[in-house]
């Protein structure tokens, strides 16, 4: 099955979806961008925008920044921070360059490594897009770079991770088709949520608006 471009979802949304489905829906279905979320993401996109035409060659690597990628099979598009092309006999020919190259996405995160899968999922999704666009077979691993540790970690792109990306995306497409914002399931994560002020997790559990009214209007009943 293939998705049309109309239906494409943002790859960046995966990390929000992994964090909280409602957060993703608020941000991407309702477009309720909160400054926090916007600045965190905008920053990266902005940096990319400046040099998205640049590609430098360093030894046996080509480094390409801000590369737009998509997958019709998964129905997503987005931008890779960095895609390195490593000279490799297992690689594929790429336009305008001699030899064979293996694409390796590298995603930059300003903060520290997360406890959940969010970043790995996003990275894996980028790799899956590249595979589809380059017809290059499975990319075995990619890298996450965290600003706080100033270190690159290799992320093996195994079947489990790929399966999770695909499952999550099909769930996102389903919600997106129904334009459905999942109800609040208050969790610890709400405290760290940048959309908390918009989501109103405490209030949306139903009942509490009526309670508030009842209490306030008690003396009039």
């Amino acid at each position: 099955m293939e998705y049309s471009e109309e239906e494409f979802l943002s790859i960046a949304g995966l990390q929000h979806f992994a964090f909280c489905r409602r957060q993703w829906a608020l941000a991407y279905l309702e477009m309720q961008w909160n400054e926090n979320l916007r600045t965190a993401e905008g920053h990266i996109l902005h940096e990319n925008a400046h040099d998205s035409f640049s590609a430098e060659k360093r030894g046996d690597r080509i480094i390409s920044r801000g590369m737009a990628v998509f997958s019709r099979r998964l129905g997503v598009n987005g931008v890779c921070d960095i895609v390195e092309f490593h000279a490799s006999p297992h690689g594929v020919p790429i336009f305008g360059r001699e030899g064979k190259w293996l694409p390796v996405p590298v995603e930059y995160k300003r903060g520290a490594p997360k406890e959940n899968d969010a970043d790995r999922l996003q990275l894996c999704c980028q790799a899956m897009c590249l595979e589809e666009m380059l017809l290059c077979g499975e990319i075995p691993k990619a890298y996450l770079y965290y600003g706080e540790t100033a270190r690159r970690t290799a992320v093996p792109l195994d079947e489990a991770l790929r399966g999770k990306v695909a499952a999550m995306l099909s769930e996102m497409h389903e919600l997106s088709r129904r334009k459905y914002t999942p109800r609040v399931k208050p969790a610890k994560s709400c405290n760290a949520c940048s959309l908390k002020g918009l989501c109103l997790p405490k209030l949306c559990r139903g009942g509490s608006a009526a309670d508030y009214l009842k209490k306030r209007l008690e003396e009039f009943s």
Partner: protein
Amino acid sequence: MKILGNTLYVTSQDAYLALDGENVVIQREESETRRIPLHNLDGIVTFGYTGASPALMGACAERGVVLTFLTMHGRFLARVSGTEQGNVLLRKTQYRFSDDEAQSAGIARGFITGKLFNSRWIVERAARDYPLRLDKEKLSGVSASLADAIRSLPCAETLEDIRGIEGKAATQYFSVLDDMILQQKNDFFFRSRNRRPPMDNVNAMIFFVYTLLAHDTASALETVGLDPYVGFLHRDRPGRLSLALDLMEEFRSVLADRFVLTLINTKQVNGGGFIQKENGAVLMDDDTRKTILTAWQKKKQEQITHPMLGEKMEWGLVPYSQALLLARYLRGDMDVYPPFLWK
């Protein structure tokens, strides 16, 4: 919650607003008089036929800063706002609710509940604060009838019923507004509502402050993705900010009327700041307008605790928080719309 930005009020008619990098620059007679970073602003309101450059309008639209043009006397002319925030789905829900009498009545009841509750609070509060200066019996009478009105609201099924209750209650409430003016009684008195044009100093001030509040409320609605022109209680009339007027009902007394009373009672304004035209219409002079605008900015910075959200916020964010609650109600996240019930 959102962070409260500032509103820039430009009152000189010969000013021109331009963009320089990330700043609004106010120019007068070819020279720069002020420069303010755009990211500090929520909105820009200009009085008179102040000019603005297309570049500035574009930058405002992009950054969600609403640029509003009013006449010198505060009548609305135009606003520049960017591509609507939020999703068209929310607006479609809003339109469906607006077309449905029962749904509209449900929400309208919330707005009016808030209005009456807060109006009653003003009256009660005045009676408590100035027991020696006020006719307590008269005030208690009004307070009691406002309480009756609140009690009868849940049974009001149609918009007409709600408007009926609201109309009677408003008459009651305004019948004691003059009593609550405790200073400068010769210059400031209130006999009845009039606004086109305002025929006395108090009406002139109230009308002006309502305009400011309507602007703030409309911007808040736009920020959460609602269409300020499509209302539930106020029905659509082209060019009227119906939903902003609806939502504003909750804040009129507690934010605007009380603010005007304070300006008079603390003598921040005086009779000399008003001009009466031959036909009786009253205008405020520039200084009075500036005094009001400065005080309004200050008022908006005052901290309160939102009665429902339990969160500390500035008065200036109250319209935004209610707009947000309304949006979440329309989205189906809550069983009722919870109006702002001040205490």
